[in-house]
């Protein structure tokens, strides 16, 4: 039955897209979670809807409009959050709503518009083409190279940005770079689970991984693996039960999150989790 499904090209493409996105989700999602910018990532994802509207209105390819628009909104959010930190959440909320509104208006104004809106809201992983896969692969490699190159700097910035500044780590530049990478990742993830569920795939796997790993690198690896697992299991279930793929993937992820939390709590109660050594210098 699985073999039969794998005969279909769109199923193979969907699996490949799911796995590519999982790697990016694990790496970028980890940075999003430890830097506590989940809301900001949500803002970028929703503002990307403006890009979808723009792409249709101008007759551009979908990826050009969305990547352009989400990088733009990411830049705007970077500027706002760096300038007025205490008002950052409200400003992100404004950009979030503005991007979506622009998208809807532009689609209204597009003559002969007849695109399936739902595919952007909930993903269209089953319509991924070979060309899409090449784009995703390219974006994934760029993200991996950048994060590897700056790994220690990202680690220092995420853990203690003040100390990082003191060690001449280019914190502002890295923050903008991170938001840019979130923008690119978000466009990829929208294909798989849709913009409404981007946040879930970006945050659930790292949130589980954080409990069980001892380094940022391990957290990224475990998040990617979990993300891949959820995506494949979700796709398979959606195929079996004839459900929306994106939403099924998220339900599986949420189930995994619940199980992991339970397991973590139980093992901690049983004392299986290591407690701090308090013998000396307390």
């Amino acid at each position: 039955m699985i073999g039969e499904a794998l005969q279909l090209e769109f199923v193979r493409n969907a699996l490949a897209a799911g796995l590519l996105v999982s790697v990016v989700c694990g790496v970028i999602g980890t940075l999003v979670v430890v830097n506590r910018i989940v809301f900001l990532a949500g803002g970028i994802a929703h503002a990307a809807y403006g890009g979808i509207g723009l792409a249709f209105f101008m007759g551009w390819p979908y990826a050009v409009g969305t990547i352009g628009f989400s990088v733009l909104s990411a830049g705007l959010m970077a500027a706002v959050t760096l300038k007025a930190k205490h008002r950052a959440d409200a400003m992100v909320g404004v950009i979030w709503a503005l991007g979506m509104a622009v998208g809807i208006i532009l689609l209204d104004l597009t003559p002969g518009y007849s695109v399936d809106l739902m595919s952007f809201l909930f993903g269209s992983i089953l319509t991924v083409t070979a060309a899409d896969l090449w784009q995703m692969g390219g974006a994934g490699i760029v993200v991996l190279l950048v994060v590897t190159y700056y790994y220690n700097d990202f680690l220092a910035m995420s853990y203690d940005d003040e100390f990082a500044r003191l060690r001449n780590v280019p914190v502002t530049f890295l923050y903008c770079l991170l938001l840019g990478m979130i923008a690119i990742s978000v466009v990829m993830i929208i294909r798989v689970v849709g913009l409404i569920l981007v946040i879930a795939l970006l945050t659930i796997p790292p949130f589980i991984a954080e409990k069980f790993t001892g380094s940022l690198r391990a957290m990224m690896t475990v998040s990617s693996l979990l993300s891949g697992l959820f995506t494949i299991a979700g796709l398979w279930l959606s195929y079996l039960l004839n459900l929306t793929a994106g939403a099924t993937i998220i339900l599986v992820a949420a189930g995994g999150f619940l199980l992991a939390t339970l397991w973590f709590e139980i093992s901690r109660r049983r004392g299986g989790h290591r407690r701090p050594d308090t013998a000396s210098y307390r």
Partner: protein
Amino acid sequence: MAEPIIEVADLWFSFNGHPVLREVNLTVPPGDFLVLIGPNGGGKTTLLKLMLGLLEPDRGVIRLFGQRPEKAAQRIGYVPQNVQINKTFPISVRDVVLMGRLRTGKLWSRYTRADRIAAQDALEKMRVWEYRDRRIGELSGGQLQRVFIARALVSAPDALFLDEAMASIDAQSRREFYETMKELNRSVTIVAVSHDLMILSSQVKSVACVNQQLHYHDSGEITEEMLDAAYHCPVELIAHGLPHRVLSRHEAS
């Protein structure tokens, strides 16, 4: 005379239109152990951050080793006020300390052998080497404090800045802490912020009270005039034996 470690001249700083520091002048000679005291909100931490180059003054000049603070970054160590930040962060004690070895142009996520040896030395010196593979959140306040001092020392700094270093240590550990500071002070200039007057032990070489303005005293004692100027309330000084103690009399009045 040797070149001063820190020079602050006519420094002014305000935050959201409120003056925080004005007319601050300060010269710290090599080998000094300076403690900045003063009331909460008096600007101690702000002054420390200005000296580190983490904040920009409105007016005035700050020089560390005769350079702008950001140029001198590799020669200073810093222990922040809150060592309890990010306790759930997945990072080991060793990786926190290695952070102190970061410098410009060190990319592709590589630390050298020299970095690893320096990290081991710093952890051993602070007697926390045995916790090197622990997750940072598993340590107690005192252990954390030592790890953060190790992080500050791992780059072999010429000057060490501590912000409220006593905040997360209990009384018993303080004597040990003073011993460590005394030993460090043989080779490193120390500037420590404390709102806790108890930090004034026999090791301290000079004191400055910060309350918008700065009152400097080049021995490890506080004078009544300094406290009056800094706190604007009557304070009683008690000094017997070592370390000196300075107690305030706030609740009574």
